[in-house]
């Protein structure tokens, strides 16, 4: 069953201006639940834009995006945010941790607007920190973390609201080989836990990993052809 379905999705930036740019040009794609899908392609191919559209961070210029058979793009901003908070967990290329607050506080951020009790958010955060073997860094400031630690904190943050889909943009871009392999192990475990994973990467360590179920080649905003 397709968890996420894209129908002729297009995204145009600076529409009608001299610098108009079409990042996604009519992509149709099914992403299956519980599988690891990798969007593979060179820089500027439209992978990241596609991830932002699927993750409800931006609206497509044309086309439809269905989440569990529900058309989501016409929903008002508030509902989109709620979907983003509940359904998706994001692992960003730049980590995007907030400086000055602790690693644990960073990881807890997505749960704040849910209205859950602070103590239970904290408990869950600490549990995830232990699970990812970074409990000793829970009270360290975000800027003091090493690349690998920061990456794990972003993973904990992505998992904070127990989302069904994890979206990761170039997750190995700032990691060395050893840490990249560790990351792929973690992602494999998440897949075993039943999560749907959608990655964008041009790192062979990612798309050649045994955990990956499907690689989608993206070039110039279009899908080139799928490899199973």
């Amino acid at each position, binding site marked *: 069953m397709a968890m996420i379905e894209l129908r002729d999705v297009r995204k145009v930036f600076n529409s009608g201006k001299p610098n108009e740019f079409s990042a996604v040009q009519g992509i149709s794609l099914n992403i299956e639940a519980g599988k690891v899908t990798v969007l593979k392609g060179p820089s500027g191919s439209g992978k990241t834009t596609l991830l932002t559209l699927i993750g409800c*961070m*931006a609206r497509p210029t044309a086309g439809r995006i269905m989440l569990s058979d529900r058309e989501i793009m016409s929903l008002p901003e508030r509902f989109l945010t709620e979907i*983003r908070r509940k359904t998706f967990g994001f692992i*960003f290329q730049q980590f995007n*941790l907030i400086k*000055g*607050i602790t690693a644990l506080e960073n990881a807890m*951020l997505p749960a704040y607007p*849910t209205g859950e009790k602070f103590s239970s958010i904290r408990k869950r955060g600490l549990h995830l920190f232990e699970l990812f073997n970074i409990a000793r860094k829970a009270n360290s400031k975000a800027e003091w973390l090493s690349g690998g630690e920061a990456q794990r904190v972003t993973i904990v*943050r992505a998992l904070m609201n127990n989302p069904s889909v994890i979206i990761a943009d170039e997750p190995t871009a700032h990691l060395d080989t050893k840490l990249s392999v560790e990351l792929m192990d973690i992602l494999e475990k998440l897949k075993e836990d039943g999560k749907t994973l959608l990655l964008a990467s041009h790192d062979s360590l990612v798309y050649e990993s045994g955990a990956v179920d499907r690689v989608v080649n993206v070039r110039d905003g279009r899908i080139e052809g799928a490899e199973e």
Partner: protein
Amino acid sequence: MATWIERHRNILDFTLSSLLRRKRKNAALVSVYTLIVFLLASVLFFTYALRKEASILLIGAPEMIVQKLVAGRQEPIPVAYIEQIRAIRGVSSVQARLWGYYYDPVVGANYTLMVAEDPDLSPGGIAVGEGLARIRLAAAGDTIEFMTYRGVTIELEIRKTFSSESGLVSSDLVLISENDFREVFGVQTHYSTDLAVTVRNPKELPTIALKVAEMLPDTRQILREELLRTYDAIFNWRGGILLAILMGAVLAFIIFAWDKASGLSMEEKREIGILKAVGWETSDIIRMKFWEGLVVSLSSFLMGILLAYIHVFFTSFMLFEPVLKGWAVLYPQFKITPFIDGAQVASLFFLTVVPYTVATIIPSWRAAVVDPDSVMR
């Protein structure tokens, strides 16, 4: 409801840790903000309290005072004038008053000596205000020496001390018997300092004052209303001068606060993007910025008000005393009775806390309505 409260608590919690990580910047902001509120509130508290004191003082004042003038200066008035004034239709009573200022070289202060109709105050006895008792370290039973106009010293015994609602009244006052007063100042028996006139119908006061002026051309008539107006004008004028000077500081602060509050740094914009990307709604961001603005401005406001209160009512307006207190020399230890005008505090609140909070929200709202995909780039 519980969810809503928790949501606010969580966001407030994040706001506080957010404020703490920009400690220096926010501390500088809070100090400048506090200073401005402190200065403004000091002037407002002080002028209001003084006006209030003056009006309390004047409530007990006679409706009209008649003084004798010689060459434009006040002189003792003949007691014989009493009967002439009493004869005017509408006058209900005329009383001779005896009062004057006495310089006490021991403490270097001026006292106000006044004759009072008090059975306790037989010759040789006085009643003193609390301020005077404090400065002379004297209590009932002690004696105070007074130098008479002849250069002879007489000792008067303190029979009692008193306080009143207004420090202005009680602080330096000495109530004395008529005999002792005349002995100290040498005012002859058929003269008094001035005359206090009461009338049956206050509306007739101007007419009666005119009749007194025609009948006794060497006198001047002072109406209570005029005194009140003069006090009001003087304090408003002085307060106004100080406020005008402070306006420069206020303007500088407005520019500073506006710049701080309205301009979001790249770092702050990035943070808003991250928060949106991880599932914060635009309203959550605005809520956060609202709390941030409120915490900064409310704490500065409360601190400023508290400091101003201490400054005005405990340290006697130490910083600006020379500007607003013309009679500082007369009152050796003058403490103002705390009177606060709620409307003034409220207007200060609305002129400081509200604009600042709004100024922090608007730019955040502009940043928060942008799509969160900016953090993906």
